[in-house]
């Protein structure tokens, strides 16, 4: 069953004319049917036109089938909201309303997403209520009323060196009844700038969608450019890209393990991991000169080859970082006061996680067995697989332990790949971009699934380039994890998700 969708594989492109365009009723019904049958929404977005918008839905089949599906429909100024029966769509529908000025009828939580101007001419839905200008975090927050209920507001500027966001807690004493998160402060108009692209600036914008996820977003963009240009990255280039992706995961997982330790006041692991994170970043800098992989991935391959001396040095440094990281992290499991602080805190049930569509380590810590590297393999992961790790306790402890187990698998992977780099060229020259096509690329960043969709026009320019960062799926998970927790648990829960503001805000 493919529910009226065109099915295809990750990293491929097809004619836009091949995308099924059912009428509204069959489109929405088949989206619901597919979700009931276990499909999951990877991207759901609108392309505005004079009368309304065309909505595109990209879905992933249940694990094991390896296929993706796409269908689309044209709507007028309104479309039916499915968020009540299908919570994973709720934010997508708000985003469509904000970007395309079409209203999801019956949406239960109709609020701005990024406080951005629409992609088409006209005023947004919320302009009238706040005096004409759309000011960030100016909206109706959910409120709990009653004796001794109070509200705590935090942000946009936070106490540490952190990106901006606004948090509203509804509290009863120390207990949090509800947390609502308002983002959009980092909105810098990436999707609007991509209309009419690619330009020489495009790759740099892709590298900075989320600066700590440069490889995963860069890989998705390169896959789209390669499938639209009819070229391939060589096995050597794909291997180096895979190594860089896992180094990115390692740096961030190591940093998160340290930050979680720091938030429970366990300073040894916190100090050690803060430094070890830098060791992984420096391994990336060994490959390309930049600790954040800038310049490494380019359509058609990689910008810098990994010669034998670099591979040897990388292998040596990995061995020593592995020992350091293992020693630093083991202290956590051996310290009962640390574990007691992590266990049974910030639980998101498997059912909730599935319903709101969590991805990445946050989902796997709830027992959801999903990972793009295995489910929709791309690049080197078509040849060499990394085992998927899951946990079942759904709490901060699960998200912590999972990071370490994933880090181990990633180190094993690099260990093997760096010693067996395929020979051959590292960069094929990109050709033009094919016109009137749709390309879809999924990758597994360290926070989870990344989805890029390119729709080209008759000149081979992007009519729309849609980006979904894993944080788009997961911020709701953080909100849910705080329910009935102490407000003092917030920093810990927040670190255990460590979501991106800029990746969400685009």
């Amino acid at each position: 069953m493919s529910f009226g969708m065109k099915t295809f594989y990750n990293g491929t492109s097809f004619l836009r004319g091949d995308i099924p365009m059912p009428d509204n009723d069959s489109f929405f019904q088949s989206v619901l049917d597919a979700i009931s049958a276990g499909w999951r929404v990877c991207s759901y977005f609108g392309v505005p036109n004079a009368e309304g918008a065309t909505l595109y839905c990209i879905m992933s089949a249940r694990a094991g089938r390896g296929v993706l599906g796409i269908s689309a429909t044209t709507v007028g100024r309104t479309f039916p909201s499915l968020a009540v029966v299908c919570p994973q769509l709720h934010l997508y529908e708000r985003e469509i309303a904000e970007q395309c000025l079409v209203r999801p009828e019956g949406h239960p939580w109709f609020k701005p997403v990024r406080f951005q101007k629409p992609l088409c001419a006209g005023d947004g839905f919320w302009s009238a209520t706040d005096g004409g200008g759309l000011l960030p975090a100016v909206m109706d927050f959910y409120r709990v009323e009653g004796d001794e209920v109070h509200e705590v507001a935090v942000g946009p500027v936070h106490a540490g060196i952190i990106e901006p966001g606004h948090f509203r807690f509804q509290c009863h004493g120390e207990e949090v009844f509800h947390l609502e998160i308002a983002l959009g402060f980092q909105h810098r108009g990436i999707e609007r700038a991509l209309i009419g692209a690619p330009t020489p600036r495009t790759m740099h914008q892709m590298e900075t969608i989320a600066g700590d996820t440069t490889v995963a977003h860069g890989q998705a963009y390169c896959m789209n450019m390669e499938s639209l240009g009819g070229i391939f990255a060589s096995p050597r280039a794909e291997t180096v890209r895979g190594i860089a992706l896992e180094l990115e995961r390692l740096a961030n997982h190591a940093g998160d393990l340290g930050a979680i330790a720091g938030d429970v006041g366990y300073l040894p692991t916190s100090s050690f991991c803060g430094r070890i994170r830098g060791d992984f970043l420096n391994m990336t800098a060994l490959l390309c000169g930049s600790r954040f992989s800038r310049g490494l991935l380019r359509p058609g391959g990689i910008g810098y080859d990994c010669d034998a001396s670099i591979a040897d040095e990388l292998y040596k440094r990995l061995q020593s970082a592995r020992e350091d990281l293992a020693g630093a992290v083991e202290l956590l499991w051996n310290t009962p006061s640390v574990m007691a602080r992590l266990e049974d805190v910030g639980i998101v049930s498997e059912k909730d996680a599935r319903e709101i569509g969590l991805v990445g380590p946050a989902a796997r810590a709830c027992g959801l067995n999903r990972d793009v590297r295995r489910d929709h393999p791309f690049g080197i992961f078509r040849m060499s697989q990394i085992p998927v790790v899951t946990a079942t306790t759904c709490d901060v402890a699960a998200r912590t332990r999972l990071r370490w187990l994933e880090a181990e698998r990633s180190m094993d992977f690099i260990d093997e790949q760096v010693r067996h780099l395929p020979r051959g060229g590292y960069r094929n020259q990109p050709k033009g971009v094919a016109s009137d096509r749709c390309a879809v690329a999924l990758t597994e960043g360290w926070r989870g699934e990344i989805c890029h969709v390119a729709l080209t026009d008759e000149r081979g320019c992007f009519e729309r380039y849609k980006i979904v960062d894993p944080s788009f799926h997961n911020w709701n998970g953080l909100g849910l994890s705080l329910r009935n927790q102490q407000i003092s648990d917030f920093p810990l829960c927040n670190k255990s998700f460590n979501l991106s503001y800029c990746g969400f805000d685009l």
Partner: protein
Amino acid sequence: MLKAIMARFRQGHRTMKYPDAPQPLPPRFRGLPLMDVTRCDDGCRECADACPYGAISASGSLTLDMGKCLFCADCAVACPHDALTFSTDARLASRSRKGLTVVAGEQYQPGGALEGELLRLFGRSLKLREVSAGGCNACEADTNVLSTIGWDLGRFGIQFVASPRHADGMFVTGPVSENMRLALLDTYAAIPEPKLVIVAGACAINGGPFKDHAEVHNGADGCVPVDLYIPGCPPSPLTILDGLLRLVDIVQ
């Protein structure tokens, strides 16, 4: 407890020697651009045309504005004469916006120290409030690194603090998105006089990869007065540290 002590012993002392000894950087690190015009052909503009952000001017003398530069080296790749290369010199910060322009054939001068009363006030203790205003979180990440044990910024009397009321200055990253402009100005207003502003990264200097997007203000210049510019995308932690240490006259 015993295990923690043994781990501590094994991990050892890892704080770097800088500034007493040079800090090694990877061979592929892209720092101060070097331009050798003797290699250039007359009228060749390949490097200037290759820059997506217009950092290079080839009309008249060859110049590169590090405030616009993402250090991507597209220009060096495009140059047919190997006249433009990036060195591993990370000492790049400047006290003025104009000072970030590297002119071919001239020695680049990194920024100097605060003067008079400001140096007396902040030279031995400088507290900064960081404001992230629309960037990609890479500048923030490599600023955070300075507080880890490897860099140990605190040993120089410099510290990032949690409130503008505790701060002597503001440290800005990001191109200043319209959605963060008000929060940035409010934070600045909340810092007691006299105060400094330090901007780090191509975004905060000039808009970076998001230059000229309608949603951003092309950096903090024009919103607040700036005392120190730290270029890079993102700047290396060493570039940030070197800039800060020059500002408080620990490095000359």
